[in-house]
């Protein structure tokens, strides 16, 4: 059903504006609903998943289209189409998802954004559930657009609402940058009056959306000319706020949730520093200069990369002593904590009790008991037991845990879909047998494109697709296409049908699967084995939903 069919004109949601305790992710989603968002798109990824989940749960009541997408790029492009139609759109993703969506993201800064387009990106400093801790503020800066960075769940709500207005005011996408502790922290949020959805209506011209070089040069010039206006906004916005101190020579700059850790320690400082908090970018340089004029030393406290700190340091000599992540006052990697910020402020650590010193074992995450991936890894291990130097590339999902004992079955995990192209490259280089292991949703996300390369070259490699029917790691979200489509999809791109197998897996068939893998690694061309068995957590969830009934 088209968006316009689902939304009656002037629709205002009836949800009350009562304060409520929400996750940061939920606050962003509620703000989008209250901002009259017409459609929302996402691909699951920790710590961003709950943004879309909350929004989707309320989508029908609010007349909002909400679709999980095949990946972040397709999600972004759908949001862009909604904006072109004059409606508001939210696209949410984790930080590395923005790499996948980088092409539409960077280019959409040039077009004439019509309906407000908000990009909620959740960074994962500390890498709780990610392969890196990249900082999305750099990508917003790279695209030369506005970025808002909330410090609290309440700010996440207010800033997301404002982001839609700013997007329409400046005709650019606006990033709301979140971090794990905000996404997955709960606190009181004060919603404000909901707003109607925009009526369907395009106001822009084709020339402002068609990035042919002649148009791009004009639009790029326009975006560059807009920078002064964006900076004027961030100099004036109350999100960037100066708080005078006791007149000492120390200045503190905080960004986002770093402010909370600073303020947690503030009452223990003998003298209150001059303080500039930054919650909106581009960096408000005039505000920083005003702070600097009052002090000799500046401590920069920010969650993520040293973004403001690097700008302040520059490369030319100056009279200020800059402290932060680049000089070791704070760690360059990992998350900030109230304790690391306390040390950077020069305060002694709080007294801790010590105890007998029993060495505690680590408890890493692991495959669930009854996980179908465990049987698949047992079969792969059995098949490769007699092979001298196999290479097994893998991908992102629960099955990445096959890297840990007792399996230790895989030897790479880089980014979504990389297993397929990397196995091809390893095989091209002469490392054989080459196996790639990828989950069903990751295959749909970014595995099918490199498979086409492998088909074209009939590469000597074996692709094992573990189809558990769900996106398990992030909490059992549905895959965009059912597993039943995988076999025809693989055949459809031209893989040799004699070497495409789909096998319904169960624990009793481990040896059978091992024999199949053994046979296919001997084939000097591309083989694809699709191993089908539902995720054990999905089975349990379904049983709970049907009141204990079995499959």
């Amino acid at each position: 059903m088209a968006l316009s069919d689902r939304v009656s004109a002037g629709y205002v949601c009836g949800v009350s504006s009562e304060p409520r305790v929400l996750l940061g992710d939920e606050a962003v989603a509620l703000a989008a609903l209250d901002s009259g968002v017409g459609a929302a798109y996402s691909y699951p990824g920790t710590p961003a998943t709950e943004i879309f989940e909350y929004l989707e749960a309320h989508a029908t009541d609010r007349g909002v289209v909400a679709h999980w997408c095949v990946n972040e790029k397709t999600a972004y492009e759908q949001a862009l189409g909604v904006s072109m139609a004059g409606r508001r759109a939210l696209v949410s993703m984790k930080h590395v998802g923005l790499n996948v969506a980088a092409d539409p993201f960077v280019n959409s800064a040039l077009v004439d954004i019509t309906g407000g387009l908000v990009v909620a990106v959740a960074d994962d400093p500390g890498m709780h559930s990610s392969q890196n801790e990249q900082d999305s503020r750099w990508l917003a800066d790279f695209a030369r657009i506005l970025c808002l960075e909330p410090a609290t769940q309440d700010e996440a709500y207010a800033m997301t609402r404002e982001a839609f207005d700013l997007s329409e005011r400046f005709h650019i996408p606006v990033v709301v940058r979140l971090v794990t502790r905000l996404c997955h922290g709960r606190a009181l949020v004060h919603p404000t009056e909901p707003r109607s959805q925009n009526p369907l209506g395009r106001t822009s011209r084709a020339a402002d959306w068609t990035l042919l070089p002649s148009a791009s040069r004009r639009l790029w010039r326009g975006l560059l000319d807009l920078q002064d206006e964006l900076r004027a906004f961030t100099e004036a916005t109350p999100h960037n706020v100066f708080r005078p101190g006791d007149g000492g020579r120390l200045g503190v700059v905080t960004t986002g949730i770093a402010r909370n850790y600073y303020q947690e320690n503030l009452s223990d400082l003998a003298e209150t520093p001059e303080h500039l908090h930054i919650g909106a970018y581009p960096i408000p340089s005039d505000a920083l200069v005003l702070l600097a004029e009052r002090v000799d030393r500046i401590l920069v406290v920010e969650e993520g990369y040293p973004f403001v700190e690097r700008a302040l340091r520059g490369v030319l000599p100056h009279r200020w002593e800059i402290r932060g992540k680049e000089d070791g006052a704070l760690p360059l990697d990992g998350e900030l904590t109230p304790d690391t910020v306390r040390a950077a402020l020069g305060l002694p650590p709080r007294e801790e009790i010590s105890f007998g010193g029993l060495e505690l074992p680590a408890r890493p995450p692991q495959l669930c008991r009854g996980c179908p991936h465990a049987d698949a890894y047992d079969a792969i291990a059995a098949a490769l037991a007699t092979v001298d130097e196999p290479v097994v590339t893998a991908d992102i999902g629960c099955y990445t845990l096959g890297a840990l004992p007792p399996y230790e079955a895989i030897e790479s995990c880089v980014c979504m879909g990389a297993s397929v192209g990397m196995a091809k490259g390893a095989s091209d280089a002469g490392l054989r047998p080459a196996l790639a292991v990828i989950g069903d949703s990751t295959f749909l996300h970014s595995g099918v494109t490199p498979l086409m390369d492998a088909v074209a070259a009939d590469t000597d490699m074996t692709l094992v697709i573990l189809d558990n029917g769900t996106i398990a790691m992030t909490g059992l979200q549905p895959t965009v296409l059912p597993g039943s489509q995988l076999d025809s999809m693989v055949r459809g791109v031209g893989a040799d049908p004699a070497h495409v197998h789909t096998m319904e897996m169960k624990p009793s068939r481990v040896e059978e699967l091992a024999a199949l893998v053994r046979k296919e690694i001997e084939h000097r061309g591309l083989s694809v084995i699709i191993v089908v068995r539902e995720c054990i957590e999905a089975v349990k969830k379904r049983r709970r939903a049907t009141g204990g009934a079995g499959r």
Partner: protein
Amino acid sequence: MKTDVVLAGVGGQGVLFLAAILAEAARRDGMVVKQGEVHGMAQRGGAVQADLRMATEPIESGLIPRGTAELILGLEPVEALRYLAYLAPGGTVVTSSSPLRNIPDYPSIGRVLDAIHEVPGSVVIDADAVARESGTVKAANVVMAGAASVVLPIDFGTLEECVREGLASKGAGIVESNVRALRSGRSAAAGR
């Protein structure tokens, strides 16, 4: 007044539900609440920890600073020990004694419990047994909510109401066995 609680357990034990009902009860009792947790990969049978801060004044940090927690609430004894550095002088440990041995190098349970008892006033409860007696072993987390209620500034009636509402969708039978678990957990802790 401020009370910081570090909740510790293993993915699948219901740490996040426990944190949610305690947070909601504190909020209903008029306190300011901040609660932090970690989802995703961290939950898959691995160590799970949540921070719960409740206060009568505004709370800044979502993370509890080291050396400031009034309570470490453990659903698993090794996990409770992992966060002792967060305990304030005079703070206590309330934990389940039931070990979850999903790792090869789990230490001797006797040494683990001895280490917990080094913290003065610590309360150790066989939460699995109490939950089983209440009707469902799955309620071990709710047993520990009841045990924690002895030291937390939360009204027990409010807490019971939050358990009832939080589990309402699971049916009356599950609600009643969890309420029994909550009350038994409180009695077990109060009886020490």
